[in-house]
């Protein structure tokens, strides 16, 4: 069921040419919000929530964000502790630097490096993996600890501040699955492709930041 409390929320999904936004849009709609897809920084001005989706490589993501003059506006938005949800590449782009295809400076709002998954397993890490909660957060409300989410990635976030990691998954090492700092949250998995519990992540995040939620 979609939640009527989310109907008036101003949700911006950032389009920086990363391709398939449709599933993220549909997931957000499914939980009851009416998202707007936007490619310009000005759209973030009045947003209640900004979502940064994304697949592909870090270097392309950063050059796309630069071309669209979104780098500084995203940094400023997050610095102001406004509600921001990153998904997959939308998580990795937040770190200091990515080693994917060389050394690429990223948005540097979360301290850490994006590094290659350890050898010895199939890469990409593709499929449903068990996500272990490291500490409780409203983001996981209604989601059992150990529920599975859908991952597709070859690099992962090696976070400098472990207390920002709220969930991990095991793939040759403890892989950062969800980070949270203030009103910033980001997932390595694709909640829009992770069935009902995935949609619940969107719902929880949006509810947290809706006018009926606690934090606005």
């Amino acid at each position: 069921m979609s939640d009527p409390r989310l109907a008036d929320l101003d949700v911006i999904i950032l389009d920086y040419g990363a391709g398939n936004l449709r599933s993220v849009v549909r997931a957000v709609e499914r939980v009851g919000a009416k998202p707007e897809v936007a490619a310009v920084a000005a759209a973030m001005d009045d947003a209640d929530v900004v979502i940064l989706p994304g697949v592909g490589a870090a270097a392309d993501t950063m050059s796309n964000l630069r071309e669209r003059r979104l780098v500084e506006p995203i940094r400023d938005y997050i610095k102001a502790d406004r509600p921001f949800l990153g998904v997959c590449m939308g998580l990795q782009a937040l770190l200091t630097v990515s080693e994917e295809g060389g050394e690429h400076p990223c948005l540097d709002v979360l301290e850490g490096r994006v590094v290659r998954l350890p050898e010895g397993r199939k890469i990409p890490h593709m499929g449903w993996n068990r996500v272990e909660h490291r500490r409780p957060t409203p983001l996981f409300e209604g989601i059992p600890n150990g529920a599975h989410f859908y991952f597709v990635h070859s690099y992962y976030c090696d976070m400098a501040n472990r207390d920002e990691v709220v969930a991990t998954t095991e793939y040759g090492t403890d892989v950062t699955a969800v980070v949270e700092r203030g009103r910033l949250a980001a997932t390595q998995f694709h909640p829009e492709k992770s069935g009902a519990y995935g949609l619940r992540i969107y719902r929880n995040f949006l509810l947290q930041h809706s006018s009926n939620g606690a934090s606005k």
Partner: protein
Amino acid sequence: MLTKRIIACFDVDQGRVVKGISFVELRDAGDPVELAALYDHEGIDELVFLDITASHEDRNTVVDMVRRTADRVFIPFTVGGGLRSDDDMMLMLESGADKITINTAAVERPALISEGAYRFGSQCIVVAIDARTEPDGSMQVYTHGGRRPTGIDAVEWAREVVERGAGEIMLTSMNTDGHQDGYDIALTRAVSDAVGVPVIASGGAGSAQHMIDAITEGKADAVLAASIFHFGTHPILDVKRQMQAAGIPMRMEHADYDDVL
């Protein structure tokens, strides 16, 4: 732990699922979107749609199917059949598909793999390989729906497609396909051992035990099946339970959208 995936495959002709399907609970058992939603509900991990329409002139039917699927199904799905350019791929991905799969077109023009991988990322590019184990023991790649031999060795081709940027291999054995008598374990293992990307075993699923064998002996990362599920005789959760009992990590939680949201 990363679970092993069960993938359901639908052959679609002019927007309708072909091969007999007999789910009584469906209003329209020939509608791939209805079926996709039902399979998602029953716990399938992933879906593949293969468009087998003879003429690919008119893509609107497929695009419509992909869009309607993305509207209702929140698990990953792959679309293939007649995609010959990165623009063809773009159309499917923009419409909501998570991955595309190419087969004959990749053999005819291998650069298509790297073009797709460069533009969309390897994670979107599934190369389907149809192979037959010949009487002399060699494993040969076939194209055009398994009708045309290529003289290419399946393991060599698997290595090449990965070098060119394939993120996953969907491997169908022409020997076992359609017989429901088990996957081709030797072929699956030979390819899976040769490449560092996930391999989906396809062709021959008739029971949960076949899937267990493909994973434990064939080293497959995922198993694909069509008819075994379509007749309702092997409920997906039953199959998953048997696989889990055999020690294979599976996604067992079964959450309904309306219950969780």
